[in-house]
């Protein structure tokens, strides 16, 4: 049998030591009438396969797919086609001592993982400006949901005599994130209010003001938002804080942190985001990781694993999991969350990628993305019949164009995966497309797209 090393002789010896006649004897606690019979067909699975057969099978499935590499690719909307350094694959995916290690509960034999998490936290601190980053969350969407719950707890604890149980989702938030927040809020019994985007693509400030009643506990914004527009974060912070609410910012394109003001500098309380852009393959949207950062004062309210520097018995530097009294395995029903993973391998990939880019490379990456986005924006807007949805708004890597509805099929035939038709995700009208650019996008791709749009 695949991956089982016991020989019949081994099994016989072990059974003898146990004093059992057969392995079946070890299942006495399962009623005989529901036990699956040896060689029966009750459980309908294929016969075993070897390495060659499974490779053939998987490759046959892959033959029925296409991917970003087959196209001039302009699709993003939360998952971005960045270059992933081969170092991230060699040092994480193929490194058995990282990929086949367990959660570092035993620090003496897990210093590799623990050190890398500490370095990861430090990098997220460098990116966001916050003193505290956790070790990682499932993804951007669930990180936002957890941040909203934490934001609610912060406000509720501060104003214990009031009932403040409303969550305000403001502006163009990724529909997958908004749906996830909705699910979490419905389950926990929090009320959800959404405030739309104005004509300029930014949060409708008037509508937000109206939504910030005394019941409001937490405001969540996305910047750059789902339509690509960079929000006026500072003024939203001001509005949220004047209403004595907690404000959360979610970031879908982590590379934007290379050039944009840090959330900490803007006065945000909790910053979360999707980390896929940094060193993680697209994989149909997962696995990557969510990042979660906040102020030092709030650390004990934070969900997720956190690593701290400490020392060993001989006074040497060492790292260990910290503040576990927030977590489910200690606090059970009183924990800050039920989460007990940090997508460690994906966070490690991000660390490797950030170090590979380095301070200079990360900035240069951001500048290249901005330059290419600006070029694409102008090139597409110059096409007859195409216009920008938000011509005056600042954008980082994505923007919305208005063109003829139903262009997708014709573009695909020409090898172009154009911008995401927004009506397919319930975020716009037919004929509106969300166009994404990365450092992988070439001038040739952009020219090809513009030409096809003009035809």
């Amino acid at each position, binding site marked *: 049998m695949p991956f089982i090393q016991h020989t019949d002789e081994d099994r016989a010896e072990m059974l003898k030591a146990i004093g059992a006649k057969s392995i079946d004897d070890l299942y006495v606690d399962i009623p005989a009438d529901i036990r699956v019979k040896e060689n029966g067909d009750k459980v*309908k*699975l294929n016969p075993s396969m070897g390495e060659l057969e499974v490779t053939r099978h998987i490759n046959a499935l892959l033959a029925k797919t296409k991917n970003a590499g087959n196209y001039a690719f302009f699709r993003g909307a939360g998952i971005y086609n960045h270059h992933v350094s081969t170092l991230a694959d060699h040092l994480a995916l193929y490194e058995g001592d990282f990929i086949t290690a367990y959660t570092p509960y035993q620090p003496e034999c897990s210093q590799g993982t623990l050190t890398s998490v500490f370095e990861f936290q430090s990098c997220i601190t460098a990116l966001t400006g916050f003193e505290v980053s956790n070790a990682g969350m499932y993804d951007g969407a669930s990180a936002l949901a957890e941040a909203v719950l934490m934001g609610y707890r912060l406000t509720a604890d501060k104003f214990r005599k009031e009932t403040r149980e409303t969550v305000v989702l403001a502006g163009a938030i990724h529909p997958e994130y908004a749906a996830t927040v909705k*699910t979490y809020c419905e389950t926990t019994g929090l009320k959800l209010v959404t405030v739309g985007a104005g004509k300029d693509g930014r949060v409708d400030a008037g509508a937000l003001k109206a939504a910030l009643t005394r019941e409001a506990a937490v405001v969540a914004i996305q910047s750059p938002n789902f339509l690509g527009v960079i929000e006026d974060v500072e003024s939203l912070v001001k509005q949220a804080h004047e209403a004595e609410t907690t404000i959360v910012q979610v970031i879908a394109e982590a590379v934007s942190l290379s050039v944009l003001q840090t959330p900490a500098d803007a006065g945000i309380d909790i910053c979360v985001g999707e980390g896929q852009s940094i060193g993680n393959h697209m994989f149909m949207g997962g696995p990557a990781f969510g990042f979660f950062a906040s102020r030092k004062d709030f650390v004990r309210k934070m969900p997720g694993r956190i690593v701290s520097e400490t020392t060993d018995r001989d006074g040497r530097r060492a790292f260990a999991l910290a503040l576990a009294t927030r977590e489910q395995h200690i606090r059970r029903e009183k924990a800050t969350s039920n989460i007990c993973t940090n997508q460690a391998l994906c966070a490690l990939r991000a660390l490797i990628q950030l170090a590979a880019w380095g301070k200079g490379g990360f900035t240069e990456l951001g500048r290249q993305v901005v330059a290419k986005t600006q070029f694409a924006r102008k090139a597409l807007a110059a096409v007859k019949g195409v216009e920008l949805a938000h011509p005056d708004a600042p954008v980082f890597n994505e923007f919305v164009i208005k063109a003829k509805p139903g262009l997708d099929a014709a573009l695909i035939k020409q090898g172009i995966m154009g911008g995401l038709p927004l009506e397919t995700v319930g975020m716009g009208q037919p004929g509106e497309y969300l166009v994404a650019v990365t450092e992988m996008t070439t001038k040739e791709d952009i020219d090809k797209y513009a030409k096809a749009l003009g035809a």
Partner: protein
Amino acid sequence: MSNIPENPADRLLFELSKPGRRCVTFPKLDVPEVDIADALKGAKLRTEPARLPEIGELDLVRHFKNLAKKNFSVDKNFYPLGSCTMKYNPKINVTLLAQQGYTKAHPYLPEHDIQGHLELMYNLEHYLREVSGLDEVTLQPAAGAHGELTGVMCIKAYFEDRGEGAQRTEFLIPSAAHGTNPATAAMAGFKAVTLKEAANGNIDIEELKKKVGPQTAGMMITNPSTLGILEPKMREIAEILHGVGAQLYMDGANMNAISGIVQPGDYGIDVMHFNLHKTFSVPHGGGGPGAGPIAVRKHLAPYLPKPRIKKNADGTFSFDHDRPKSVGKVRSFFGNFGALVMAYTYMTQLGREGVRRMSQNAVLGANYIRVKLRDFYNVHHDRTNAHEVVFTDAKQDKENGVHTLDIAKRLIDYGIHPMTIYFPLPQNTGGHGAMMVEPTETESKESIDYFIECMKKIAQECKDNPELVKSAPHTTPVSKVDEKTASTNPQLYCPMCLG
């Protein structure tokens, strides 16, 4: 700078950094340069570049290779962590996943471009239906705890749909359950009500009957339990819950004992989750990513997260977003798809026969360890166990003043990762520190025998030289780590990363 370690191998990335060093270079910009402030007019910019380390490629590789060396891993070490199922992770799973068809698959590709991915997910759902004996599966949850939350959300939505939402406020949870169970129930807005186990480690049926009622939404049960024991009265438990209209949730963390042996659906459970990173060999990755699909009985299927995957009459596959009763989404897109590919690769290799052999050999190994060590350590329940066995330090504590933590750390010196310790909690193991051992089916008899010999040696050391055990480990890159200070005086980032 004097406190920076002399040996570069001991330094942090930030301490290896020197201005001007670079790893990655970019192609020359093929479009005009822009002035960032001008291009992003109306947006606030960073005041200085993020203080990431600046490092050359060789130093970067060496840094991570040196870190890797400081880890134990399944590739290198026996890892008998109870409840975690640290089995071998076949290399082929990673190799197949690393292909461009997966790495560059975007979630917003049109359905005709992802037929092979949809087919894989459809097939994996089928596998999990077959192993669970339940009717429908979602692959969206990213982890076991996430699956728990999703399952409990479905139960909640089901009761709300029936107009019983206000009435069903409680979830029953055995006291030895994983911490995620009560945390999940609380997160979903339920009151977690603790059930004490009977003296033999099974569910106390009388206690259950006392606590169950019209206020009960459901019960979360781990089977085999966290004490490594198969629950003999599963069907009776299901009947008691169903008798008051409540639902039975099964935590599938321990499916490595019973996959292919019994379909949990036959017990009468309504919903369960799988930990694909335990049972189906997605590598643990030092703490994720895993995947926590859930399987449900028909009546809960309308509430599963969306989209679902469907097979059309013409043999093609598509997403079904039209699920009006769905709880919605529990994360973005379709789950940890890359992890699903690895689990699928593993399951197709095992096949029907292999899944059954997997469980049988896992249970065989754990029982073998119990009988071989029963004269040296207290077995918490010395009876036929499932895929794991719980010992305690009762004997060593009483006779030598040596505790579970010491024994666990001493095991490291023998090149074996510690077993799971202090879980289940001391209150569930007679006040003594638990040592939960799960060998898995992929370890050879020789590895298991070596573990047994090491445990015997440590038992002898506890008598002859208790200090040796108490001061362990002696062979690791760091000695016993001060975990308390990590929490009382946390230092959570390298000061060099922040201005």
